[in-house]
């Protein structure tokens, strides 16, 4: 996928002025969401997520380790993203660039701050042994909006996950053996949405060309607790600034879109569990 031409960017921006997009979607409308669970038998949990032509894989592996000094009674989370050269000729082999670090960080913060995983319940012995949950992300085909797809994949893989067998005597995990126990997860699904600003318009779930045409982006992770919505992670990206009014408007849109996306997620999960 080559860098988007100035002409295409201008057309995207002209279209948007009339409230239209190349693929006929509404400004805030997501593409079709398809989830596949259990894509690796050797993972504790795994999922493949397709948002239109964007295709990603996420896996959860677990191990037992010493807790961090500042959280002696809590499990540990780590998240690494690899933007594979397989998924786009814009990505190169070699050490991770900023983009893959950012995707990893945004998965990490979306999962950690949303309270989706009860890390206190992942303590085996305070100060000595806790579970570590490692979420690894791979892009398979990048056609925009990798971050939102990544967090959907992480949540799906966590729901899919079974706890591995832990040998208490040896203090070690029996790799390749699992219990029937699921991870301690909250019922509220965290949803991460990245809003893109193009020529004064705000859109969701951009294709690659729309990402290229955008001036600024704002990623928000939303959860719902007791009927009230909260923003649990946020990051403004790219060089252009956002006005206070625009930002406030985005917060309000995000709360509304949350309900639509949770429904979309649940529907895709039901389909995935059938297979």
């Amino acid at each position, binding site marked *: *996928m080559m860098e988007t031409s100035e002409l295409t960017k201008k057309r995207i921006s002209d279209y948007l002025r009339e409230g239209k997009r190349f693929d006929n979607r509404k400004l805030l409308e997501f593409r079709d969401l398809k989830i596949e669970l259990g*894509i*690796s*038998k*050797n*993972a*504790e949990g*795994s999922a493949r997520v397709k948002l239109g*032509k964007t*295709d990603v*894989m996420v*896996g*959860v*592996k677990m*191990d037992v380790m010493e807790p961090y000094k500042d959280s002696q009674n809590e499990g540990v989370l780590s998240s*690494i993203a*690899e933007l*594979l*050269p*397989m*998924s*786009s*000729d814009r990505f190169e*082999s070699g050490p*991770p660039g900023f983009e893959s670090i950012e995707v990893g960080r945004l998965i990490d913060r979306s999962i950690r701050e949303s309270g989706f995983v009860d890390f206190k319940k992942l303590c085996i012995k305070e100060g000595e042994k806790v579970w570590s949950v*490692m979420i*690894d992300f*791979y892009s*398979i*085909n*990048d*056609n925009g909006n990798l971050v939102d797809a990544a967090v959907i994949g992480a949540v799906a893989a966590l729901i899919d996950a079974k706890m591995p067998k832990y040998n208490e005597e040896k203090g070690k995990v029996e*790799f*390749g053996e699992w219990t029937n126990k699921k991870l301690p997860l909250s019922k509220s699904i965290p949803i991460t949405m990245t809003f893109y600003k193009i020529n004064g318009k705000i859109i969701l779930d951009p294709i690659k060309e729309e990402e290229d045409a955008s001036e600024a982006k704002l990623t928000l992770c939303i959860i719902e607790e007791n009927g009230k919505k909260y923003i649990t992670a946020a990051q403004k990206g790219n060089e252009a600034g956002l006005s206070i009014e625009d930002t406030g408007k985005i917060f309000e849109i995000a709360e509304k879109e949350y309900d639509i996306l949770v429904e979309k997620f649940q529907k895709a999960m039901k389909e995935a569990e059938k297979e």
Partner: protein
Amino acid sequence: MSYTKRFDGRKNDETRKIKIELDIIPNADGSALFAFGDTIAMAAVYGPKQLHPQHMQNPKKGLLRVKYDMMSFSVTERKRPGPNRRGTEISKVTEWALSEVVELDAFPNTVVDVHIMIPQANASTRVAGINAACLALARAGVPMKEMCSAVSIGKLDKTLVVDVIKEEEDYEEGEGATDIALAFSSRSKKILLLQLDGQISADELKEAIQLGSKTCDKINEQLKDAIKALGKEE
């Protein structure tokens, strides 16, 4: 006790169920998935395209670059994300194997990148990767002299078997396990890949190569059929 009955009940010369999917990655010029049972390989081809930096360009022939890696969760004990020494070696031997069948002279000054990724592994990943790569190259329309295909042969105690699984790799009875990765060109029947770990006599290895060649012929038919079937759809 000699190894007479395979762990998964297959005949000695029988591969696991082969699954092929083509054009799985829309961004790539060619792509494919190839699976031997639970071992899944995905491959994407980008190119031929301009090679940078310029001093690496060769006016006589094109360059083929292969990168193989496994996803961290493809194995029971998590693999650290990113390339390691094992992956670097597999990338290179795969590159050597494919370079023999790709018409490198047809695209001077340019490069073809082949990316192989393993989302789920149960042994024999490098040979599954070569099959996926060969399909992806064909779908990308990269000029090829002929096709190639690959398979693993195991010697468990004294018994030769085709398409080794993890349990067989770890077989310890009698003479134990010898694991042989093989790839052949489809028409000229040349050996494109030969790697071996274990202990085996020269005569037995000759026999293993014969078995590998025969099996690769069969696999090659399936690769060709898959490409033809798609051709009919288009």
